[in-house]
């Protein structure tokens, strides 16, 4: 096996491998960020090309149904306009009442739009990568949304990219509540099933709360990462947990986590970012 070159090349390779496996975390993170930054332009280029191709394909496929889709969208727009008007009125009432009882005006937040440029290619985690990063004001622990509901939170950022841990990942925990019953619990992911379905579980729900299929699940605002009342999903089923003390609710996320192409990052307003809380 080691005839010509002797043992030296093998020792060098083994040393390199062992060194890589035992690098201090900050150094390893630095190397990973440098490689990712170097490849970011190519990454964005290829993923945008893929997105345009997919959109063109979708357009061609749906060309016959455009008129019907247009009608449905107009109806939806009308409904949403009506809803916005009623919500604006409610917000005005809310602001007046808050001012009356001396509540601090809740600071508004900005939404930063981003495109999904990649998913975790190893498939061991439920993560994706956005084409916005530190240069766009993103930082770890900011919530990520889709128009339908909560998608996850940012875990790592480089100058031009941000990695998002989705709520479907077993390592993601979100404090949630069920507005109908007022029940609280901790939501965590269970990964994606082979049939592509994504279900999350809400643990530690007190059994006195009667949970029903279809119950809405929203963020509770506890924990400091996610603001309250972001829609998360709805309950599919609820079962007693292994201890029998609590109940576990199985939740179907509102966001289409398996096919997300765009996302919004909830960034703090200038006053919040500057510490003006």
């Amino acid at each position: 096996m080691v005839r010509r070159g002797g043992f030296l090349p093998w020792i060098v390779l083994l040393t390199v491998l062992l060194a890589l496996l035992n690098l201090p975390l900050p150094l390893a993170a630095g190397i990973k960020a440098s490689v990712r930054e170097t490849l970011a332009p190519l990454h964005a280029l290829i993923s945008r090309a893929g997105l345009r191709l997919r959109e063109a394909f979708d357009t061609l496929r749906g060309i016959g149904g455009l008129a019907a889709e247009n009608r449905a969208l107009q109806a939806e727009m009308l409904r949403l306009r009506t809803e916005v008007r009623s919500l604006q009125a409610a917000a005005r009432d809310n602001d007046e009442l808050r001012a009356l009882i001396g509540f601090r005006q809740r600071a508004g937040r900005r939404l930063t739009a981003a495109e999904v440029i990649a998913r975790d290619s190893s498939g061991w985690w439920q993560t994706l990568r956005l084409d916005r990063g530190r240069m766009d004001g993103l930082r770890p622990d900011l919530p990520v949304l889709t128009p339908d509901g909560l998608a996850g939170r940012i875990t790592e950022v480089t100058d031009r990219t941000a990695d998002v841990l989705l709520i479907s990942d077993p390592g993601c925990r979100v404090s949630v509540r069920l507005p109908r019953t007022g029940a609280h619990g901790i939501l965590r992911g269970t990964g994606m099933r082979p049939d592509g379905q994504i279900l999350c579980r809400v643990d530690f729900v007190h059994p006195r709360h009667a949970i029903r299929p279809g119950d809405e699940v929203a963020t509770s605002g506890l924990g400091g990462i996610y603001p309250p009342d972001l829609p998360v999903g709805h309950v599919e089923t609820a079962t007693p947990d292994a201890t029998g003390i609590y109940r576990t609710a199985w939740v179907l996320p509102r966001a289409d986590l398996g096919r997300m192409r765009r996302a919004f990052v909830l960034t703090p307003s200038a006053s919040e970012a500057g510490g003006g809380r």
Partner: protein
Amino acid sequence: MKWPATVVLIGAAGVLQAVLPAPAIAGQTAPPVMASLVVHFALRRSRAEALSLAIACGVVFDSLGRVPLGFSSAAFAAAALLVHRYRDEVFEWRALTHVILGAAAAGGATLITGLLLTAAGHVAFALGWLTLKTAGAAVLAGVTAPLVCAAAQRLEHLIGLDAGGRR
């Protein structure tokens, strides 16, 4: 010209794998473009060179995902050794050699990475999931490896890297 072209090839393979869809039925494994490139290097280059490139492929692959640095390098190095060991056992139809060696390399690399991640506590051990991912990677590599090997070979031919043929 040789090394810059190789670096570009590795980077492009990593990016391509990151943007390709990962089917749930294959354990959410994206088509193993990088493992296929490792197979190509193991088939065409000397053992030491193939191993060095496998380690480099691992660094790029880990950098583009959440896998800790070095895990994929170890897995790809083992896959490169395996392919290099059996590269003379070829089938008459060359693409079939790529299919079989690609499947073995990608399946093996996924299995080794999974075991390393489990041992280090980064993911919880789930035999069914690990089996699904290993099998998924092997099946996908059966399709990807011949394509990647043919494309890489064509590219190397275009820039004059394969003048000496296999080493």
